[in-house]
């Protein structure tokens, strides 16, 4: 690929204990694109994207090796601090996870405030911007002091997106962000992603094939920890090169 990638994974192996779950995956993503990762349950999608912000290693017994280049840094190089990587690579999880007993406002600025940003005027502006970017501002602007956990599931998920955006990451990882949500909330988040990609590069794991087809530029198909096929979304869905990909997207297994 000729254009410079923001993210480039080279021969990544990862797993738990002695079990290898991601078996030598290489792929790359350009600036401001959406990459979808699809594949049957248990094939290592979550493990893979959790390697991209070095969250995987927080599980006891987890291992990972290989290269993951974020712009000009290999995040698995020896002297790299995982904490600094996680500020650049945000993450949204499957289950909405607003912080307990924090208001909507405090949830959004949690990352900044706990990192030492104190000035209220700055925080206030960031809250507004982040909530606007997460398409939640109009629903919550009059109740920023309400507990984050009082919002509906779909709203909480957008709150989590706002919280991730507030620290201004360059890459946003999303692990099945809509699979716990109703169809309307799902549609809202999909809509939101077309805006989000202007700010961040998105890697999204999804179980929903239509969703992958609708929102992504490129698609990676995983099977048993291996990257079976990786290409432009339109090509992967209309003319898959691999037999296994075709069987999966037509629903014949998985």
């Amino acid at each position, binding site marked *: 690929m000729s254009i410079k990638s923001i993210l480039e994974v080279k021969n990544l192996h990862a797993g738990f204990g002695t079990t290898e779950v991601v078996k030598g995956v290489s792929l790359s993503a350009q600036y401001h694109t959406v990459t979808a990762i699809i594949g049957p349950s248990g094939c290592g999608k979550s493990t893979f994207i959790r390697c991209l912000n070095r969250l995987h290693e927080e599980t006891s017994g987890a291992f990972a090796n290989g290269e993951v280049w974020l712009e000009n840094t290999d995040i698995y190089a020896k002297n790299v601090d995982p904490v600094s990587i996680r500020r650049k690579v945000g993450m949204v999880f499957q289950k909405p996870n607003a912080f307990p007993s924090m208001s909507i406002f405090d949830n959004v600025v949690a990352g900044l405030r706990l990192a030492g940003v104190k000035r209220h005027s700055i925080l206030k502006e960031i809250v507004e911007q982040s909530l606007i970017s997460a398409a939640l501002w109009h629903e919550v602007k009059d109740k920023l002091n309400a507990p984050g956990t*009082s919002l509906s599931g779909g709203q909480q998920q957008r709150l989590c997106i706002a919280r991730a955006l507030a620290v201004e990451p360059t890459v946003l990882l999303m692990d099945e962000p809509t699979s716990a949500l109703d169809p309307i909330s799902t549609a809202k988040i999909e809509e939101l992603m077309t805006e989000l990609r202007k700010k961040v590069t998105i890697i999204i794991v999804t179980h929903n094939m239509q969703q992958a087809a609708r929102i992504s530029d490129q698609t990676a198909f995983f099977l048993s920890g291996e990257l079976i096929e990786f290409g432009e979304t339109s090509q992967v869905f209309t003319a898959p090169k691999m037999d296994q990909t075709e069987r999966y997207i037509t629903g014949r297994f998985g």
Partner: protein
Amino acid sequence: MNPAVLSQHMAQRYLRRKITHWIMMGVLALASCLALIPLLSLSVYVLSQGIPGLGINFFTHLPQPIGETGGGMANSILGTLTLVVLASLIGVPWGIGTGLYLSEYPPGRLSTAVRFSADLLASIPSIIIGLFVYTLIVIPMRRFSLLAGGVALGIIMIPTLARSTEELLRRVPIHVREAGLALGLPRWKVILRIVLLGNARAISTGIILSIARVAGETAPLLFTSFNNQYWQRGLDQPSSSLPVQIYTYAISPYEDWHQQAWTGALILVLLVFAMNILTRILLSPRGSS
């Protein structure tokens, strides 16, 4: 089998099951009522015995020599409050710190050992803790002291608080912690500011319950803070406390003192009940609408 016979058989079995069900329900209801009887009768008894001695003097005056009226337990009440504060200064950070360690750091030999010791410590009779503090502090200092009493009660708080904190934090979903880590926060900040503070109300419930538990401890105070019929004069001096004063008065031969003991008991019970009620209020769902 003939279908008619079968269905008759089933009907009979159904009836039998129904009857067994009602009998069992009755037994359980009776057992629950029986469990309430000691609590109710104790409350009524302590109230009826304690109220006659209640008056402003009880809270403002020092104990009087036998034969003189108008004495109170002001110094004992103050002593118990001070002991509880001292105990919390030691027990709360230590207990919560241990609980945090047990729930947040990977299981290993150390945490297994710590957990086991906490459970053992919790099952040691409190009089033994008192003896331990006696040799640790009272003997070297050559006198009973408020400090020694506070340390004894603080040690008693540690294991229960550690285990209740651990249990509580274990119920915080792992993905809340991961969300914190994913924001680029160091682990200790996630633990303190998100996991612990996010559950501050439940944690404070554990603290209050452990305080309520030690507030009424008597045995460990008998040879640590001991007793004193005057106002407290310093951390390194013996101190009166409600439980020890109640004990002293209750075993005395004087009618007057028996009355004082009952009123002291009433205050102690009210204090402990109040703390329990406070935890209910803290835990009641509010602000989550």
